[in-house]
């Protein structure tokens, strides 16, 4: 067994895919010297014809990746900051994502958009702390948010092999994770397949990204009184609705914890779908950032707007008490 860090898992996934498939190439700012470390060692191994430093031109290089993908390459773009997705949004959502349908299936755009350190990073404030995965799920771009090193590896590999555009959010809150793994066992993780990290019978907690770890901690704290099941969807679009329905068959109670803004966020979608189609014996709850939140700089303010462990504990306790008996 080897200790695998989340960062190393991302690096290994790109490296393995570049070795497996010559079409895979890396675009990004400062990727050759690997300022974020995600692309460390790739130039040395694969050459600067496949690992390309880009000017600060997110719209252009995102569009260039689309054209390159339509001509047979499989670019992986690394964005240094989640907010750069807003600059590139046009080229991802309006171009890359739409080409397959608009051309009647004549082309596909296999580009992976990787955002290492999405969400709040200490002290980075308003323009560096967004976690915009809900936007991509909303428009229908395949969207994944791995919580563990092994899943980071497996989901990134799948994203690179996928023939559609896929956005991979690596939450800042998960980047420090390490895991004891057998490297030979690392494998692709299919999109749209959730994972139960902890089985339970009383309440299902759906946790997104780094909040999976928060949910597991809270579940342990409450273990004497409430048996919490922790469900990690891993990909938000496609979403493992069947896996969620099966979990709710067992528990009938639902709490969602999601580090994106409340209104039109993925948390709201999970609640709505559960309410429409699944077995619930109590009103569900969600914990999110506030509506339209912009993360303020001061530490206390930043933390105040992020979903917290206390909020989760209270929500689980409240949901466990309400509703009819199962």
């Amino acid at each position, binding site marked *: 067994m080897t200790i695998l860090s989340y960062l190393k898992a991302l690096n290994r996934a790109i490296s393995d895919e570049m070795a497996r498939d010559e079409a895979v190439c890396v675009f990004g700012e400062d990727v050759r010297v690997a300022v974020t470390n995600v692309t460390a060692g790739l130039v040395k191994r694969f050459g600067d*014809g496949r690992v390309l430093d*880009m*000017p600060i*031109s997110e*719209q*252009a*290089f*995102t*569009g*260039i*990746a*689309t*054209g*390159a*993908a*339509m*001509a*047979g*390459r499989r670019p992986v773009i690394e964005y240094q900051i989640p907010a750069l997705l807003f600059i590139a949004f*046009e*080229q991802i959502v*309006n*171009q890359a994502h739409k*080409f*397959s*349908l*608009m*051309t*009647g*299936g*004549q*082309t*596909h755009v*296999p580009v992976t958009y990787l955002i290492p350190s999405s969400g709040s990073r200490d002290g980075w404030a308003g323009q560096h702390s967004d976690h915009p995965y809900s936007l991509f799920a909303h428009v*229908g771009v*395949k969207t994944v948010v791995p919580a563990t090193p092994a899943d980071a590896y497996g989901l990134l590999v799948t994203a690179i092999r*996928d*023939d*559609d555009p896929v956005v991979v959010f690596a939450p800042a809150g998960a980047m420090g994770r390490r895991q004891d793994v057998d490297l030979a066992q690392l494998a692709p993780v299919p999109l*749209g397949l959730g994972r139960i990290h902890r089985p339970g019978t009383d309440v299902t907690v759906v946790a997104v990204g780094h909040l999976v770890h928060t949910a597991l901690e809270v579940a342990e704290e409450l273990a004497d009184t409430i048996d919490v099941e922790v469900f990690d969807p891993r990909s938000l679009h*496609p979403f493992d*609705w069947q896996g969620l329905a099966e979990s709710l068959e067992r528990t009938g109670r639902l709490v969602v914890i999601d580090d994106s803004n409340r209104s039109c966020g993925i948390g709201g979608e999970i609640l709505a779908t559960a309410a*429409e*189609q699944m077995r619930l014996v109590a009103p569900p709850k969600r914990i999110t950032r506030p509506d339209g939140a912009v993360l303020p700089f001061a530490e206390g303010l930043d933390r105040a707007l992020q979903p917290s462990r206390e909020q989760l504990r209270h929500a689980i306790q409240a949901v466990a008490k309400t509703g009819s008996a199962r």
Partner: protein
Amino acid sequence: MRRFEERAIELVHAGHIFGGIHPYIGQEAVAAGTCAALRADDLITSTHRGHGHVLAKGADPARMMAEIAGRSTGLNAGRGGSMHAADFGIGILGANAIVGAAAPIATGAAWAARCAGSDRVVVTYFGDGAVSQGVVLETFNMAALWRAPVVFVCENNGFATTTRTADAVAGSITGRAEAFGIPAERVDGRDAEEVFAATSRAVARARREEGPTLLECVTYRFDAHHTWEHAARPRYRTAEEVQLGSSIDPLDIQGARIDPDLRARIDADIEALLEEAVRFALESPHPDPATALDHLYADGTTARAGAI
């Protein structure tokens, strides 16, 4: 192109085309001259005013007409319409409805083609409106740095919808490219042979791996920005101005170079071809609404219904 669009406008007015189209009438020499300088395996990207480019690159007029009439036999099986017509089999990477957005896509395709060892060239068309889009200028920078085999063809037809070029473009269009070290040429966009000659030079440069060129093709849009304009009648140019602008017709310029008998035969052939294209389009089936989200994902992932 001219006759195709005249037919298409009739179909818009008769209600056979859903929405409307952006006529290319008056600008045909640009598409004809540029595409004539390309090989069959070269690529193009086009714009919201793309019928001319798509036809000149060799798309089947019947399938093109069916596409803009939203039929399942269309180039894109009715999924793209006028502003997204694409035929990847003959190098048409799609018309694009977002002004300027195709410039990087073309450049990416050009880069990938060169990496694959081919000497293909990509022509990307855009209007004078697009030279004020940041992404186009970002793309100039990168295409020049990489010496990408791409030819930027700016069709300066005098207007971006209703805004005159002079009111929207500071400096010059060629100067924008020159600032990035891209050679730029201002060409009479009404003379197909002049456009052909300039494009041939640009394509040859690109094939020699000397990098991109910008051609500013100066032309004039005779018709409306879009067929809605006939209903809305926004006032941004006078009838006299349109008449004056339309008095130099690229069809007359090129037509005068062709033997009258030959021209009459070409005209008759085209009439027959378009007759057939309209018939084909109108007799083709409408796509089945149950297939409206087909092709959304490459792997056939299906979307959940909006209402349950």
